[in-house]
């Protein structure tokens, strides 16, 4: 039986993309898988009794070494902010290519804590900073120094000791350009070095909290229980900076979603499912309930989604336990069809992710296809005709062509880059100034404009002739030819409408990172947790691959 890939017009809607969950394809999980046989080491730990100073952690294999260089700094409570406008953080980090010597550390000490205003070199690969969850960090220090373990309920509510507020890579602030390292096999997957940084930062947070607790009360202090450590991740506050990324990297977006869709298609095409695979699937579904019930958020929007997810997952488990037989042919296809009819989008995508758990042989080859050589598809095939272009648009953007952009609500917002922080922002076109400097992220509106203009042009004209008179539409012509080849490269929704939920765009990207517990703090930013439940670095050689569904706090 052949199953069709799901329709991009349905899957690439923002509400669906904003319901995606982590899976085996997620970057933090594929990172752990790739680096599990690398040698992990803490090379330097030079902190004072309050936990301020430098530390270096590394992964090495053969002749290659990646080193996380950490700088922990004292800051005042009123200087601590997760917002991008902050200028000081509790800790700052960079991933150095190789083994840094003292001169490197001295150089980096002057640059890394300054973040965006510092300057890195091609020897640095990623850059980040993080703030303590002061409430949790101080509580853990206090309890450990008294010889006790911390209150699990408090830890469960937060899930981490530190949260990063930005992770930069690919040439930002002088960091190495991607092309310098792209041929390294171990990083043949998107954001792998960003994942490495966050993972090593997590270990630094445990070491730091133990260190401070010890110096507070050397005779009595205990270390944080390993099981508790494993159930803590790294938090992250993410704002709109992430949203334009998925619009600006269409072939990359396609490759992420396409990999997920191919995995689902292949799983639905399995005629007979082995007992061990169905057992693993059901086990993950049932154990994952903890991830839903411990998913805390004040956001009413997300609370409703979680409520519906929990309700539908319970309904699904009842169906699997009572009305379903895994010995039937094509059981995962039956499951998918049941979900499509009876479950909410959040639940459909949740189960789709878990379907991948038993199938390394399907997911592993897809991981290496999730990067993209974007430049290959940059050139517009200008010898094609206007008729070709009309056909592509009508076939690939059918939802979008139905939007009426004469209605004010459909052009209510515009995307711009803020002058003070050079970060993307969204504003009301009719209330705020600056819409004349709008970024080219209103794809739906511009596609519609292009379509209208094309209909007024002779069908046999070449695209070159069309562009010579319509240069303002050049960016969108390029996209149309990309979506012709890459069906999941485009968000099939209006990104400037009144009702847009920008967090759906963030959620899409963060789900591919492998984030858990999306906690929207408004419609424009959210908090998440990464690596919660993940093995500790010294456990990587032999770890439970389904760790993500086995968290206990």
């Amino acid at each position, binding site marked *: 039986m052949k199953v069709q890939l799901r329709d991009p017009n349905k899957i690439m809607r923002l509400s669906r993309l904003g319901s995606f969950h982590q899976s085996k394809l997620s970057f933090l999980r594929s990172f752990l898988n790739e680096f599990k046989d690398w040698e992990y080491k803490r090379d330097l730990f030079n902190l004072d009794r309050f936990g301020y100073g430098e530390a270096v952690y590394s992964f090495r294999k053969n002749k290659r070494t990646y080193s996380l260089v950490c700088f922990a700094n004292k800051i005042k409570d009123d200087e601590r902010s997760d917002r991008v406008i902050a200028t000081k953080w509790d800790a700052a980090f960079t991933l150095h290519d190789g083994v840094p010597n003292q001169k490197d550390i001295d150089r980096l000490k002057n640059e890394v804590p300054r973040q965006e205003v510092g300057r890195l070199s091609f020897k640095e690969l990623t850059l980040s900073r993080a703030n303590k969850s002061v409430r949790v960090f101080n509580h853990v220090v206090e309890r450990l120094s008294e010889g006790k373990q911390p209150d699990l309920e408090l830890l469960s509510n937060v899930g981490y000791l530190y949260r990063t507020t930005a992770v930069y890579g690919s040439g930002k602030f002088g960091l190495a350009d991607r092309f310098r390292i792209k041929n390294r096999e171990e990083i043949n997957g998107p954001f792998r070095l960003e994942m490495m940084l966050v993972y090593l930062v997590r270990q630094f947070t445990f070491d730091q909290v133990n260190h401070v607790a010890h110096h507070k009360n050397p005779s009595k202090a205990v270390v944080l229980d390993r099981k508790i450590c494993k159930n803590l991740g790294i938090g992250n506050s993410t704002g709109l900076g992430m949203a334009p990324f998925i619009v600006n990297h269409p072939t990359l977006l396609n490759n992420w979603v396409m990999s997920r869709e191919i995995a689902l298609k292949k799983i639905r095409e399995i005629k007979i499912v082995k007992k061990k695979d169905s057992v693993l699937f059901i086990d993950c579904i049932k154990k994952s309930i903890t991830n839903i019930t411990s998913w805390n958020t004040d956001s009413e929007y997300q609370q409703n989604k979680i409520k519906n997810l929990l309700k539908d997952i319970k309904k699904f488990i009842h169906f699997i336990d009572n009305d379903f037989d895994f010995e039937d042919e094509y059981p995962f296809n039956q499951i998918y069809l049941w979900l499509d009819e009876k479950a909410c989008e959040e639940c459909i995508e949740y189960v789709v992710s878990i379907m991948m758990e038993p199938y390394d042989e399907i997911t592993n080859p897809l991981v290496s296809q999730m990067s993209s050589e974007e430049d290959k598809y940059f050139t517009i095939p*200008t010898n094609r005709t206007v008729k070709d272009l009309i056909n592509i648009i009508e076939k690939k953007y059918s939802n979008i062509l139905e939007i009426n952009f004469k209605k004010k609500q459909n052009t209510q917002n515009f995307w711009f880059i803020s002058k003070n922080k050079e970060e993307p922002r969204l504003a009301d076109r009719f209330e705020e100034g600056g819409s004349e400097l709008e970024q080219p992220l209103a794809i739906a509106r511009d596609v519609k404009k292009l379509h209208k203009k094309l209909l007024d042009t002779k069908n046999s004209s070449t695209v070159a002739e069309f562009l010579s008179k319509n240069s303002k539409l050049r960016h969108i012509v390029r996209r149309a030819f990309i979506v012709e080849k890459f069906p999941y490269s485009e968000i099939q929704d209006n990104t400037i409408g009144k009702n847009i939920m920008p967090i759906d765009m963030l959620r899409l990207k963060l789900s591919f990172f492998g984030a858990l517990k999306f906690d929207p703090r408004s419609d424009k930013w959210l908090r998440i947790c990464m690596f919660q439940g993940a093995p500790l670095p010294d456990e990587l050689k032999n770890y439970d691959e389904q760790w993500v569904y086995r968290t206990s706090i």
Partner: protein
Amino acid sequence: MTSSGSTGQVFKKMKSLSEIETTAKRASKAAGFSWGESEEIGKCIRQLEMFGLPGVKHLNYYFRDKENNTYENLSLINVSNSSSPNPYCPIILGISFLDQLKILENYEKIYFTNIAYPIIFLSFLSRSSEIIGKKINVKFDKKEILLNLNVNIYSNFLNIEFPKNSKNLEISFIENKDNFNENEWESLYKLSENTFVEETDSLKKSAAGAGLTDND
């Protein structure tokens, strides 16, 4: 500004190519080009800088001069193209060249008179060379430049300031052909044969296809 690093080497505080591309794109939009054109400019300036050519410098010069000067926008390129008195805008010319490449590659030579900041135009020609899979030779003002499939730019311009204007520029597409003659190849091939081993009759009999009728 410099600082030293792990191998004792000195790190110049550089801009990454990614920063160069993004900033060139945004600056071009601010200078009045469309987003689509600005994307092209960003790519081209990145490429020039990667080749060690002064792309950022000349783009700056061009934007500065653009405020006070007028440039001609040539959107339909012919075999012979002349602009007087105002020079051609290298960006619009470059984009037009890319867009009309499939037609232009049929011409043996293409001539331009009066192009502003020809180095910017060169970056578009370099991308054109990659797209059509042919080297492009450019001659101007007694200088010669070989654009090699956007892998590198070879010229006798090294250490010489690029001119801000090219009076006469001639482009020719180089058909793909060997850079050596048959004798040179034979000589090298003969030497390489010294790594081969003479096969015995018995080995020949057991080689692939042995024992089969070739007409089956």
